[in-house]
């Protein structure tokens, strides 16, 4: 595992997502209302791109006809078969203990700290005045 700077914070606004390639691994990174989440971009079912899925909410019901809708925008549905994954945990809704998307840590760091290392900035230019999104993968 190594830390990778993947974007300047101001270029990765809330409500957007990015597909990043970390040494050949595709990782989907989401900014949901200012919080960052990263999941392997391969749906554990058959490999669909989670980054291309729709973000929806968590729908539950205690009985037929009662719709309890919460956590809007925190559930990613695979575009291939509609399986739902919690972006906070990577767990699938239907089979959370066995089917889950691999999760990675994402954080926001100040450019000044990044310049000091030991981050892998690779080709990404970092300036000390800005904040950056850092993926641990």
């Amino acid at each position, binding site marked *: 595992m190594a830390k990778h700077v993947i974007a300047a914070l101001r270029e990765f606004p809330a409500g957007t997502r990015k597909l990043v390639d970390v040494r050949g691994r595709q990782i989907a990174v989401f900014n949901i209302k200012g919080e960052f989440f990263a999941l392997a971009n391969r749906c554990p079912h058959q490999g669909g791109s989670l980054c291309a899925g729709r973000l*929806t909410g968590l*729908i*539950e*019901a*205690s*009985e*037929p*006809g*009662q*719709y*309890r809708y919460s956590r809007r925008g925190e559930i990613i*549905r695979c575009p291939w*078969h*509609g*399986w*739902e994954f919690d972006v906070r945990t990577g767990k*699938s*809704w*239907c*089979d959370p203990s066995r089917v889950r998307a691999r999760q990675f840590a994402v954080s926001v760091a100040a450019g000044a700290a990044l310049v000091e290392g030991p981050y892998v900035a690779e080709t990404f230019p970092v300036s000390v005045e800005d904040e950056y999104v850092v993926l641990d993968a």
Partner: protein
Amino acid sequence: MAASWSTIDCDVHVNVPSMKALLPHLDEYWRDSVLDRGMNSLDSISYPPNAPLTARPDWRGKAGEPPNSLDLLRTHALDRWNIDVAICNCLYGVQLLYSEDMAAAFAKAVNDWVAKEWLDRDPRLRGSIVVPMQNTEFAVAEIERCAGDKRFVQVLVLAMGEAPLGRRQYWPVYAAAERHGLVLGIHAGSSYRHPVTSLGWPSYYIEDYCANSQGFQSQVASLVCEGVFVKYPKLKVVLLESGVTWLPAFLWRLSKFWRGVRLEVPWVDRSPLEIVRDHVRLTVQPFDGPDDPVAVAKLIDHMQSDDMLLFSSDFPHWQFDGDDIMPAGIPEKLHGRVRRDNALATYGRLAEAAA
């Protein structure tokens, strides 16, 4: 007596021999109507008398008529196979009537006729309450009217009716069934409101009969997806004369697609496979299995449950020959469950009597 039961037959048929038999159980208006309107019979085309399926050849009378008396039921089935308890399902065309009032009158007549001509005459017999599903209120009223008689152990509806059984319009029926400890028995057959296949009307009887398993599939999907078992967690459903072997493949399909579209039915909060295992049972005739007993055992394995199969002879329908009442290949170790335990676990009223 009850503790010594070893075989419970969950599907035998008793048939209304003629409209005349029902006259004593109709009120004056309907009794006169039978005569005034010249009604002869409400037999549906689901079991034409001459169709091979309708009665085993060695049980037919001299003129080829299907057996239809208590004596014949005793001789051919109850006594011959040492059946301790048999649940009678009367298939008469009550469900086909368009008039809700007439359906209610004839459902009542059929149920009273079953009680008097069958249940009163042999302590081994139990009944199923025929309900006029044309009108939910009337169906509930008929359940309430009959439920005091503990010999009625289930509510009987057809596999193919006016609307999918999961629909909320029918829920009061399930509430009543659950309240009274009655099973919902869904039997092969159609009220012929719709073509028996979703493609349109088929040409031949064999197509009609085989299409029932598709009807059953759709009913299972409807009951699960509409959330009937969430709303009525104690409700048990028995598929009667449904065939068995289609179930695992259908549940794989239903459970697989549930994962992708479960957000339409959030009350279905676990796999349909699990829900069906908890709530749905099937009678073993017909079984629709391959000849190879190893393949049959594998199919049963696919059901992932030893609790789902209930013994039935389907008397007098021609599902098997001789005394091969247990479909070949059902593992020996399951026979006790299939013959007795599963029925007791399903039919609360049988278990009460057995206690």
